[in-house]
């Protein structure tokens, strides 16, 4: 049974062909580092998002590996070239079967 959470994408809906667009992707996730302890001294196991990928009409254009040092509710801002109209798909994969997917459409003229 996979767990998931809310994600949010901010990027333009239209762009000129071959212009560079900025994409902001954020996921709601505690990113439990695995370095914290409970009140009674027990180590809280790591539970983080480990990878984030962005595909553009099914072609991977960006990938990120996250480690425990990424802050809670992880945000990543990156750029991509608006080559054509289509769909960008964003996937977050993490510990304990975590998976979240979001999409955004862009019209390129």
């Amino acid at each position, binding site marked *: 049974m996979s767990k998931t959470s809310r994600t949010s994408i901010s990027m333009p809906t239209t762009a000129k062909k071959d212009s*560079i*667009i900025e994409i902001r992707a954020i996921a709601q996730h505690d990113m439990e*580092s695995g*370095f914290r302890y409970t*009140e009674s001294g027990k180590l809280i196991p790591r539970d983080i998002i480990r990878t984030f990928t962005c595909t*553009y009409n099914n*072609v*991977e*254009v*960006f*990938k*990120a*590996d*996250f*480690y*425990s*040092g*990424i*802050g*809670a509710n*992880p*945000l*990543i*801002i*990156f*750029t*991509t*070239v608006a*080559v054509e109209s289509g769909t960008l798909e964003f996937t977050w994969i993490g510990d304990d079967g975590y998976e979240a997917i979001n999409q955004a459409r862009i019209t390129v003229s």
Partner: protein
Amino acid sequence: MNKETQQRRHWLKQIRGLGLLALGLCASPLSVFAKKTDADEAIQKITGGAVAKEGKVILTIPPLVENGNLVVLKVSVDSPMTANDYVKSIHVVAEGNPLPNIFTVYLTPRSGTANITTRVRLADSQTVWAIAQMNNGSFWKGSAETLVTLSACTELV
């Protein structure tokens, strides 16, 4: 009265000297290297032993951080990002965190720029490194130093 005071002052000076010596030992580079070697090892793994040249990579963190739990970090690598000349990956490594690796991004000529922004955890005041690998296999590096403070009224769980 005078002799006693003199003796007391002499003892106090001795203790002060010992105190300063102890302090000096605490602050000696030896204790700091413990963390720095972890970061160095992580960087060596990234470059496969190759030397990363200083330059092209600009790492921006606020010089004074109010809370180390969420610090805005920007990396920008100077590159035309064309098919022949682009940044393949950027690795960010922290000298003062329990785990040195913070994140890695993989870019392509379709990325347009090698500008990345994210938010990281910084456990302590420290130096953070960004290592960029170019498509021609070369490595470049940049760093930033920051002071991390804590809120005055933290939570008692």
